[in-house]
């Protein structure tokens, strides 16, 4: 059998314990965190060095077998699902922080380091790694780079692509390529670094990254405001953005607020139609003044019910924890969640939220809306039971309707989760033929035999 000779070859070339093909393990690696998607991998490999990654790709190329890179498997776009089988290459065995330079303010890491581990290591030098996706305690930096992860501080600090200075990566021929450098000012050659950020393992497998760190703010303050309509909350977020770029400006609709309060009570207003969590960082005085200024802006907005600022650090942490648990807490409403990731211009937030609510009504599905209002990035989450075919059909059609929303105002169908397998057909539908063909040619240049994460970007 083909799979067996592939596994034999991998075992011959890689250290003992690196290759696993037991049925239960293959089953575990068949999925990522995306509902409704699964594949059938032939083998799972866990290399511990860039040379081993090269070996895996070379062997795979000989066998024309797909290689799907995987970090923590927390992808929400089915980017880590081996839709055409083959090898799942897990980077969990390459998790060393190779260097943190407090003068240059850069970190050099292997791809399997978790986002939180890097930020914690940076904190010891008074530095911070700003991207903080909801899954940061498990998500890996390789995965963050591959999908262009964002987080709760995106409005002020941007997303992963603002922090990658250089990469080492293995292309589809099993050859290591080097992009960018250690320095920020660098226009030598094409910006291949930026091209690899968000390429979802379809162009090359990242084996090392140079990341930019920033000085860690001395203090952060947080507050909460509640509103009697969701549109009012969204408009208020736009009003805040017109006065600056706060670090945190998060929206939670009443569906989310209620499930969160049932799980980790943080004193959120369960009678409100929506809640905004806001805050900013800087020196002690800056954090205080900026957060007070946001509160003043919010108090002057229409349909505001209450605005308060966390009095203690514990209160602030409770508020943040509440926001962070919104997705898992929504899972209490139903066993399956389909989480979307649309981005619209901040000035269109209110209209977008309204459009999502009408989708929920038309398709008779439960949708909880939370997201990063500060950068127009919303996560409408459809909650249903995938064992019920009718519910699943309604969920799928609601999802398609949500994808159509951002195009109205020049937005994007994914802000930080990536396209993966889940959004590929929707991306095709909103991309012109010339651009689509160019993406396929770029893919072919990196990966002539289409073995890197096939069935995703560049090969559909």
């Amino acid at each position, binding site marked *: 059998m083909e799979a067996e000779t592939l596994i034999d070859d991998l075992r011959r070339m890689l250290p003992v314990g690196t290759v696993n093909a037991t049925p239960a393990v293959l089953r575990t690696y068949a999925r990522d965190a995306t509902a409704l998607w699964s594949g059938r991998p032939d083998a799972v490999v866990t290399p511990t060095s860039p040379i081993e990654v090269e070996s895996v790709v070379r062997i795979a190329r000989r066998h024309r077998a797909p290689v799907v890179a995987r970090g923590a498997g927390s992808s929400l776009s089915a980017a880590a699902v081996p839709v055409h089988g083959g090898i799942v290459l897990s980077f969990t065995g390459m998790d060393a922080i190779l260097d943190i330079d407090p003068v240059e303010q850069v970190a050099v890491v292997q791809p399997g380091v978790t986002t939180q581990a890097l930020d914690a290591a940076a904190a010891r030098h008074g530095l911070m790694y700003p991207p903080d996706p909801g899954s940061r305690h498990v998500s890996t930096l390789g995965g963050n780079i591959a999908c262009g992860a964002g987080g709760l501080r995106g409005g002020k600090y941007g997303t992963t692509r603002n922090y990658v200075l250089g990469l080492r990566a293995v292309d589809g021929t099993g050859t290591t390529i080097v992009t960018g450098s250690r320095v920020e000012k660098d226009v030598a050659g094409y910006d291949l670094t930026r091209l690899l950020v968000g390429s979802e393992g379809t162009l090359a497998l990242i084996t090392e990254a140079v990341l930019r760190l920033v000085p860690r703010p001395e203090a952060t303050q947080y507050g909460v405001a509640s509103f009697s309509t969701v549109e009012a909350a969204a408009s208020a977020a736009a009003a805040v953005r017109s006065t600056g770029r706060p670090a945190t400006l998060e929206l939670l609709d009443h569906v989310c607020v209620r499930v969160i309060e049932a*799980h980790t009570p943080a004193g959120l207003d369960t009678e409100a139609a929506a809640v905004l969590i806001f805050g900013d960082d800087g020196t002690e005085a800056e954090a205080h003044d900026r957060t007070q200024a946001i509160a003043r802006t919010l108090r002057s907005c229409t349909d505001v019910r209450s605005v308060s600022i966390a009095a203690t650090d514990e209160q602030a942490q409770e508020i943040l924890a509440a926001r962070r648990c919104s997705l898992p807490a929504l899972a209490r409403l139903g066993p399956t969640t389909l989480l979307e990731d649309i981005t619209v211009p901040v000035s269109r937030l209110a209209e977008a939220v309204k459009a999502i609510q009408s989708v929920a009504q038309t398709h008779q599905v439960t949708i909880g809306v939370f997201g990063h209002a500060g950068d127009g990035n919303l996560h409408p989450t459809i909650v249903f039971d995938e064992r019920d075919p009718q519910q699943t059909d309604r969920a799928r059609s609601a999802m398609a309707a949500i994808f159509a929303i951002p195009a109205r105002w020049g937005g994007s169908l994914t802000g930080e989760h990536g396209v993966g397998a889940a959004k590929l057909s929707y991306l095709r539908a909103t991309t012109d033929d010339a651009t689509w063909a160019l993406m396929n040619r770029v893919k072919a240049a990196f990966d002539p035999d289409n073995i890197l994460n096939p069935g995703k970007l560049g090969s559909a």
Partner: protein
Amino acid sequence: MAAVADGTLPIDDPTVVEQAGYCLGCRACEPACPAGVPYGDLLERWRADVWEATGSPVRIRLLRWAVKRSRLITIGGRLRGAARRTGTVPTGTDVLFLGCVERLLYPGVSRAVTRLVPDISVAEDGRCCGVLHSHNGSPSEGRAMAGSIPLPPRDGVIVSTAGGCATHLAQVRGADSVQELSTYLLSRWQPAEGAHVVAPRNRGRRARAGFQDSCHASHILGNGSAARRLIGLVADFVEVPDAASCCGAAGSYAILRPHDAREVLAVKLSHLSRLDLDYLVTVNPGCTRHLAAELRRTGASTRVIHLAEFLALASPAVPHSRT
């Protein structure tokens, strides 16, 4: 589990069998899960299905058989000198439940409880609460066993000195009827004026004491602060890093998988060696046994002791001696 449920993997798949036994069942995942997945219940049923198909390990079958010998346990407890109903007539309505393992291995624990709370009655009846059955492939039998434990009259509560038993009983009989010792003592006991536990190696100095949580008491019942406060009343309390994570004893886990149990404890042992405690206080006999054995092996001088016995050391009425 999902793969077995949907038929992708057979119930006797080697990895499935291995993983059903490998999990400690500490249930730390339950309070952490915002989606409210009842993992403990899923694990119990999964383990039962797997072992039904492949046969339970011999040690587990022996254990399940042994804890049902209630008359022998009753007699054994008496021979070992566990607390008895005799002596001063209890006036309270609360009943101390003597766990089957504890009364045989650590009879001093129940005696210490009756010293701390003289009006508590003692249920000498050697019936097991069924927690070992529940965790080891017979959840329905385990529930039935807990259901057959007589409840105290009127508004009394069953008091258990074992975190595992207390949690199991509370889950089957209702949290209003059952209390784990630490929360019970917090409202019922206070040290005598000035009483404290002295350090064994340096008499006169207050002892330095740490605490190891019982997984189920802390994750499911939410207990933990009570024991820490009680210890702090009579000694210098030292928080042990990762005290709330499992020590590896995990009920019968240390008996069934001694190697894995030691590996789980290894990290904790390195913390403990740095802390140089006089006492490490526990609220579950499995933890006491595992921690004491492993600390002895490493030559540490820290003494592992149950909360009841530890607090009894502080009582001026009791001479400072090993129970």
